[in-house]
């Protein structure tokens, strides 16, 4: 059995009196697609930022790819990919230039960058758009490009923060194909989403309410546990229970 990709123990983050993430404990296995669900403001993004080394935890422990999130953040950063809610490619650079830049700062050689660029453009069917400014692309394409660039350095874990917000269903489906493809190669996927159909695509999901993890299991086990027909019902039961 290989070691888990992510482990957390009582991971907590306070902002003044407000506890954004309250003692969450979970494990994510390697190669797993782990859905991280919760209402807006439930603490998902805070948790994810701590795991990525963007935010220092207040207390608790966590290891990502085997490294400690307090002391080894730079080592973690070498091994993870990250795609935030905000679109984070440079709109005033072309598709190719964005790929080259991110490849470059992850330490890929010029040859690797050339090969990756070719493969990536082929896979996304974007050869014709290679020299177009990113600002000219439709949103769905941007998101797929964003994801492909987030995994350009072959990370072992990818964090996706609401990657498909505002994207049409067909493109969302294509986006998930990309995710599956990466997961098949052994990449661990840690994804937050508000779309319950996407939750069904995950191997396991956790649902956060008010900074705490209230449910964690496979989608089918959760539906059984809550006696619900769909993930949507499970989510509503938990979210309503709070109020």
């Amino acid at each position: 059995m290989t070691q888990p990709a992510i482990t957390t123990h009582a991971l907590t983050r306070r902002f003044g009196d407000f506890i954004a993430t309250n003692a969450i404990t979970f494990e994510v296995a390697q190669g797993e697609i782990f859905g991280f669900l919760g209402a807006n403001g439930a603490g998902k993004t805070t948790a994810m930022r701590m795991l990525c080394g963007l935010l220092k935890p207040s207390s608790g422990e966590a290891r990502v790819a085997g490294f400690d999130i307090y002391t080894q953040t730079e080592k973690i950063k070498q091994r993870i990919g990250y795609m935030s809610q905000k679109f984070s490619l440079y709109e005033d650079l072309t598709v190719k230039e964005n790929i080259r830049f991110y490849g470059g700062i992850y330490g890929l050689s010029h040859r690797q960058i050339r090969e990756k660029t070719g493969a990536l453009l082929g896979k996304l069917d974007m050869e014709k758009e290679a020299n177009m400014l990113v600002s000219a692309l439709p949103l769905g394409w941007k998101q797929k490009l964003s994801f492909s660039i987030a995994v350009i350095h072959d990370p072992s874990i990818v964090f996706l923060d609401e990657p498909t917000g505002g994207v049409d269903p067909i493109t969302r489906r294509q986006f998930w194909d990309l995710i599956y493809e990466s997961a098949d190669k052994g990449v661990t996927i840690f994804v937050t989403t508000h779309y319950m159909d996407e939750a069904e695509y995950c191997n396991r999901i956790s649902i956060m309410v008010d900074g705490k993890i209230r449910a964690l299991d496979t989608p089918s086990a959760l539906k059984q546990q809550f006696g619900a027909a769909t993930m949507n019902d499970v989510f509503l039961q938990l979210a309503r229970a709070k109020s």
Partner: protein
Amino acid sequence: MRTIFFILQKEFLQIFRNKSMLPIIFVVPVVQLLVLAFAANYEIRNLSIDIVDHDGGNWSQQLKGKLLSSGYFQLYAQTGDNAAFEDLETNKADLILTIPPHFERDLVRDGEAKVQLLVNAINGSKAGLAAGYAQSIIGDFNRRIRLDWLALDEDDAPSHFDMSFRYWFNPRLNYKHFMVPGILVVLVTLIGAFLSGMNIVKEKEIGTIEQLNVTPIRKHHFIIGKLLPFWIIALFELAFGLVVGKLVFNLPFEGSIGWVFLFAAVYLVVMLGLGLLISTFTETQQQSMFVTWFFLIICILMSGLFTPIESMPEWAQRITQFNPVAYFVKVMRMVMLKGSGWEDIRMDLGIMVVFAVGLNAVAIWNYRKTV
């Protein structure tokens, strides 16, 4: 090292793809140099004067003629007292010369007469100059009368000194030669402090900074990659400005231009550090612009560019010791007009190095890869 290369490549692509950037680099300096150098001129000519002549005699005519032919004064009106006061109040006249009745009679009979000079002192330095010019012309007139009447040669007149002036370092008192080096300092300062700070904050504004912060990019790689382009552009700008200054104003290059660039290279590190520091505690380009503006306007106004530091009150003079802009203005003028060299500028350069190290240390310490 390779990381820095990739950041630089990206920065230059973005800078030159930005449509407002090329005009900023090439048009702004030319316009600023031309407009400011011609407009910021302290030589005062063509002061408008009202003359109230209650005498109307031969001598008062001569006095008027002498004043108006000096080139400093232009007759606005020759009127009565009240009209002249009104002109002064409505800013139509800068000063009034009143020649009293019996001016000539008193002069001839008593050997003594009085004239009155009223100066509009809203602009203090202009008023001072106007009074000064008028006094020296009237004084000269006075001396000539005495010589005439005493029928003496000018040379064996009552013993007196003859003063002779020579203006060193700017023999023709060409104001532009004094201003242009200073204006170049302002230009370089704007690029250094404004553009660099705004560029970093822009990454925060569009959210890409978060993406960069989850990459293994090193803090100092990022900072060097962000600041170096503006260091290069600002030095280029300085060279460009000097060429324009030479072509348009025939700017003297008394000292070695190498010292100017050496000093500018260090000075720019100070200004880039300021931009970086401001970018660490602002969130939007607008905020960063206002904060930078706040600091720069003080630094520029207190730099000795427009008003001499020596005439500031002592507390202000002490503050200028911490003003990097003041050092650069001073060194620019020293090297360009006086031909100063290493011995003369090394103290200032040393102080600039201290500023550069200090400010950047604070800025880098304050820069965080976490949110």
